């Protein structure tokens, strides 16, 4: 298949699925359409990845799209996690409907927006135009805002409003940064759409005006940093990730944060090329480290299970941002790996958390008890998920965090204690909270229910496998991506 056609199909499938589901999203067969659409997207994504693997980076669709090792692996990851989330959401949403938390219109809306969200994320990743990147990012936010408030409870509406307003303001700063970027680029590349194409920008990044780019980066950092959920711009994140339906929490935490970080890293490469200093990297390291520490201590104080894991997402995004800021081959490799394994582990955790809170009809951690005996898959899934996310060997997150720590010790040794402190506190906090939930007797109010096995097991096995043995193709992808981001 021609690569342009492949890209069109990749973006077309979720878009068309979204339109179809807007009409039939409340029917009995709607979840199957949702799964089918996501599976098709994943299949095409794999095809595209193979093509890039064999042929190297490519431009397509009149240079509107650009695919290289960096964004293709994130595209495959996005398509994969959306597929497993669609599988998980089939049973989960059916039960929410039985409980009367969503109606007909809600279901139609849910399914349509889920697919639109996937479309927006893939567009974000694959576009070559920095302006379109911004537009797609905003579209991804807008498509999930009303999903957060799907249950229409006062807290859900509050969370969604916060998400809408704070992310709207944040991302507006990124648009101003993009305007400044265009201002600098136009002087070198001339007017018109060509001056916003990433492939052109990177080619001439050496001759872009450094003062303008430094200023632009501050705005881009604040803008996309809000979407990554970096402290102190993170206020919306725990609310938005905990009040919506669990499948949405899984994709918000597992995927959207990655996409925002992707945008930030793309901008950083341009700024570095122009300023030849470590200015941008330092800013990212500062934000990253602050996020790790603040999130780790916030973990200790949580009572709501989904809220706790949202803070854990902030912490892990902090780790990846810190590592990208640090730069160098080892840290960048670690950051790329970290984005992958965190995304897999975190969405698996949210799947089990969703089941656990449905079994107890509550997200309050004090009420969730006896998961090992009540439902072994949920209990052990949660336990292994937490072990993975806390960075225990032999899971993949251990590998990535170890790489990042090694690089920190080499390049910025005075920061190692802070990094270790954050990781240590998060580790302790997670285990202290999770132990009582999984061990012990089954409480009387716990209800047994059928759960979706496949997504949880698949994700955790992948995280484990990557920790034990890094496949060659992944290794070479990451190495190519590291070269690109140098």
């Amino acid at each position, binding site marked *: 298949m021609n690569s342009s056609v492949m890209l069109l199909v990749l973006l077309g499938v979720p878009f068309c699925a979204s339109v179809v589901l807007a009409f039939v999203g409340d029917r009995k067969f709607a979840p199957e359409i949702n799964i089918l659409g996501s599976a098709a997207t994943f299949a095409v994504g794999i095809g595209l990845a193979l093509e890039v693997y064999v042929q190297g980076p490519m431009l397509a669709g009149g240079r509107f799209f650009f695919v290289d090792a960096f964004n293709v692996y994130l595209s495959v990851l996005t398509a994969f996690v959306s597929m497993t989330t669609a599988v998980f959401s089939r049973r989960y949403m059916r039960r929410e409907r039985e409980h009367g938390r969503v109606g007909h219109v809600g279901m139609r809306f849910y399914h349509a927006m889920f697919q639109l969200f996937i479309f927006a994320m893939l567009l974000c990743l694959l576009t070559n135009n920095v302006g379109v990147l911004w*537009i797609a990012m905003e579209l991804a936010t807008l498509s999930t805002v009303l999903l957060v408030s799907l249950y229409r409870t006062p807290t859900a*509406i*509050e969370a969604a409003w916060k998400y809408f*307003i704070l992310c709207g*303001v944040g991302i507006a700063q990124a648009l101003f940064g993009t305007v*400044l970027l265009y*201002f600098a680029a136009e002087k070198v590349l001339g007017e018109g759409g060509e001056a*916003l194409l990433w492939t052109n920008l990177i080619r001439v990044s050496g001759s872009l005006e450094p003062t*303008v780019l430094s200023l632009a980066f501050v705005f881009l950092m604040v803008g996309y940093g809000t979407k990554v959920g970096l402290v102190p711009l993170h206020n919306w994140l725990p609310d938005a990730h905990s009040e919506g339906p669990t499948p949405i929490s899984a994709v918000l935490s597992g995927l959207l944060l990655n996409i925002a970080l992707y945008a930030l890293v793309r901008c950083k490469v341009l700024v570095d090329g122009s300023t030849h200093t470590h200015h941008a990297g330092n800013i990212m390291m500062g934000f990253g480290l602050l996020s790790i520490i603040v999130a780790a201590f916030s973990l200790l104080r949580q009572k709501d299970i989904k809220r706790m894991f949202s803070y854990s997402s902030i912490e892990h995004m902090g780790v990846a941002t810190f590592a990208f800021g640090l730069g160098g081959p080892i840290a960048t490799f670690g950051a790329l790996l970290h984005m992958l394994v965190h995304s897999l582990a975190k969405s698996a955790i949210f799947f089990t958390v969703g089941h656990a809170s449905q079994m107890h009809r509550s997200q309050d951690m004090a009420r969730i008890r006896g998961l090992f005996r009540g439902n072994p898959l949920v209990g052990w899934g949660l336990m292994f998920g937490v072990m993975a996310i806390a960075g225990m060997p032999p899971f993949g997150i251990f590998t990535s965090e170890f790489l990042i720590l090694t690089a920190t010790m080499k390049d910025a040794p005075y920061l190692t204690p802070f990094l270790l402190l954050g990781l240590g506190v998060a580790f302790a906090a997670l285990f202290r909270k999770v132990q009582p939930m999984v061990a012990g007797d089954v409480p009387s109010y716990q209800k047994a229910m059928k759960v979706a096995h496949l997504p949880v097991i698949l994700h955790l096995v992948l995280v484990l496998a990557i920790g034990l043995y890094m496949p060659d193709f992944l290794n070479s992808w990451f190495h190519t991506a590291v070269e690109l981001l140098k």
Partner: protein
Amino acid sequence: MMDLQIVSQISSFLAALVLLTAFGMLVQKRVYGLIHLFAWQGLFLSLNTAVVGFVANKHHLYISSVLTLSLKVVLLPYILHVLINRLKIRKEVETVVNIPMTMMIGIALVIFSYHLTAPIRQLSTLITRSTLAVALATVMLGLLMMITRRHAVTQIIGFLALENGLFFAATSATYGMPLVVELGVALDVLIAAFIFGIFFFHIHTTFDTLDVEQMAKLKEEN
């Protein structure tokens, strides 16, 4: 050329009017009056874009100008009108605290914007370069409005004013972003408009008011 100078003066004058409306919005208490001010700001912006398009001989700016006119002067104010009529909050008056203080912060933000954009003004050769500071100030004032006000409709108007500032910045720094980007941004604003419309109804039915002060349940407990 005499002609060019007059036109650039007109452009600066319109920029001043945009800033004036931004300050006006900061202290306007009536929801109804706010929407009018927002429409006026859009109109000045649209005229300014057309003027710049004429001076710089950039035809795509005419398209942006018409887009702004239809979206921000006609469509969005109309949607807001319909919403506040439906929700019966047409006459609502918001208590705005500390107006002198807010104004002072606003003035400080304008000065800060001039300071921040100084290096860009030096690099730019466009006749509109002096209005970039005003554009950034409009962004900042929109942000300030969203922080200081507590009404859902006011916050949204602050958000839209902020977006006006961004559009203005693009016009004055670079004679407008490429058309595909401007169209995309307009589309996003349009989708956002539908979403906040739905939101107003949800908030109103759930909390019985559009005062977002009511929404303070989600906090960190100790």
